[in-house]
């Protein structure tokens, strides 16, 4: 029986492939895209303001509020700014670090450095955020107080490994001989970086930036802990579900980061970075 099944599958490549793919495709289709579709559908409903129950009739009202409300534009732009700042800071910190790890450290040190970069990921997100709350508290070691700056700082810390690791992987694949060749041809450090290292590691940087950018864009907990009185898109979503019980409006707001990420991914794709990953 088993043999016959094996023979059958061997002869029918199509059946084999579809059997292999069906589980991941079901996951992608149902759990991932299905959830997104449900989100989109919910965004067109409304809630009864008093009882808080869902009213399942089609309406554009949520998106109208979203577009016309000045406050949502401000919050969206603020979130975008935070995500961009976090990505930039992480890039500036991560690149030299990844370069040192990939090109300067001995193979033995390399292994330890990778572990060192990974260790913060073993601790809980909340513990790390609260640690920064204590550090930044006016009586704390840093004592800079809370606010948007504190949020950017904490998020940069939280997502740094997600930037270092792709760049490190990218630099590892960069042959040392290319650096030597650039040196032999008379290029100094900066020029080598600009004409050899950067173009070849750009796909890795783009991959890292997708992580840091999207993670920052969706975050609402860090800003609650160290953000003082500021709020980001995530908070509006959370408040509308958690406080106002307005799931449809929350769904409408949640489409904003989805759209921003689609635009971002399209922009990255245009640079050709995705093909070289």
């Amino acid at each position, binding site marked *: 029986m088993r043999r016959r099944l094996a023979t059958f599958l061997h002869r029918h490549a199509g059946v084999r492939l579809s059997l292999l793919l069906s589980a991941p495709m079901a996951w992608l289709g149902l759990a991932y895209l299905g959830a997104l579709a449900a989100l989109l559908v919910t965004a067109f409903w409304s809630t009864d303001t*008093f009882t808080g129950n869902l009213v399942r009739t089609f309406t554009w009202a949520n998106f109208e509020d979203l577009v016309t409300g000045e406050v949502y534009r401000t919050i969206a732009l603020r979130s975008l700014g935070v995500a961009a700042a976090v990505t930039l800071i992480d890039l500036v910190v991560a690149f030299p670090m990844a370069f040192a790890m990939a090109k300067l450290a001995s193979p033995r040190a390399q292994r330890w450095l990778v572990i060192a970069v990974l260790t913060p990921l073993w601790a809980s997100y909340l513990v790390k955020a609260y640690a920064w709350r204590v550090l930044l508290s006016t009586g704390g070691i840093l004592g800079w107080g809370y606010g948007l700056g504190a949020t950017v700082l904490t998020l940069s810390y939280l997502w740094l490994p997600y930037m270092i690791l792709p760049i490190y992987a990218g630099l590892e694949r960069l042959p040392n001989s290319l650096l030597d060749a650039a040196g032999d041809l008379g290029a100094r450090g900066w020029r080598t970086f600009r004409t050899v290292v950067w173009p070849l590691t750009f796909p890795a940087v783009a991959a890292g930036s997708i992580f840091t950018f999207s993670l920052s864009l969706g975050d609402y907990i860090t800003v609650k802990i160290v953000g003082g009185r500021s709020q980001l898109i995530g908070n509006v979503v959370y408040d509308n579900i958690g406080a106002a019980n307005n799931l449809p409006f929350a769904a409408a707001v949640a489409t904003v980061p989805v759209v921003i990420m689609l635009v971002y991914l399209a922009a990255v794709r245009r640079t050709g970075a995705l093909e070289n990953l």
Partner: protein
Amino acid sequence: MRSTPRIAAAVAALALAAACGSTEPTGTAAPAPGVSGFTPPKIEALASLGAGEGQVNLVAWAGYVEDGSTDPKVDWVSEFESSTGCQVNTKTAGTSDEMVNLMKTGEYDAVSASGDASLRLIAAGTVAPVNTSLIPNYADVFSGLKDKPWNSVGGVSYGVPHGRGANLLMWRTDKVSPAPDSWGVVFDPASPYKGSVTAYDSPIYIADAAVYLMATKPELGIKNPYALDDKQFTAAVDLLKQQRGIIGEYWSDYTKEIQAFKAGDTVVGTTWQVIANLALADKAPVEVTLPKEGATGWSDTWMVAAAAKNPNCAYKWLDWIISPKANAQVAEWFGEAPSNAKSCAETADPKHCDTFHATDEEYFSKVYYWTTPIPQCLDGRTDVTCKDYAEWTRAWTEIKG
């Protein structure tokens, strides 16, 4: 969701009909002020009490269900568990909105709902009427707390009163002087404590601004901080937008507020008595007062879920929490007035009931219990439409900017 959309539609239709002035077909008892806008879905109360199910799942305010894990001396749950065999599982909620959402999941049997949650729960059919004859201790509850607009509809009781109190002003004694006696210290844009002021992170906080405006801007004519017409609402929202400039952070998680006061990041702001108690236990030099303008407050009700999986244990819990001893314990711990008249004899501090004005209706006339704002003005005005809770929520997002 089950059949809730239909119920919602029915409620909405009835609300509309009532708003248009038609009389309710089944309205026998005079509708309570301000809540004539809706008829709750028909749900039967429990007729008789059976054996306990072995557990009960509660949604409660912090400090309402203590089993000794916060402080070994603070425990009124263990005795309940051993005497009834009902294991108590508690989910603490930070805001009324969170409570409403938790109850809608259908996972919980009972809830300690404030007035800004109770009516929404009743209207949505999330909670069932409570058969008070199955709750012996109900007889001893202050009559001033029974059959109120936030715990009954049309003479039908939807829960048992838990206790009441006021939202207070807390400050660090070492950083704030002179000791404040007015909410002005958290609303004045030129406050010397700029950047170290805190406020409650919920739309219902708009009412706190309205209470302040009642005293400082009488020309606005605010009678009830939960009944705000266009002009009054705009004034309150503007005040809060101005206040944002001096806010350090907003709080809804009470542990965050305790930590902020302890560290000194926050030196003045709104609080609950229980938070002050916990902060003092943490050696934070804080003090609280009821400011001269009056304050918002709460009068909480224990309600039973319509879809309760453990209704018998829920009823036993309702009876337990308003029993003289347990009610006295929770009132002292949370810092509020008990609901059971006999509790006043059971408190560790014999003056507790006087301190918290348990029988002082005059005092509570200065406390505006959390109530859900609805379009029909709660203060009885019929010539204007008031802002409903959805608009309060939206305004809150705008205030925080």
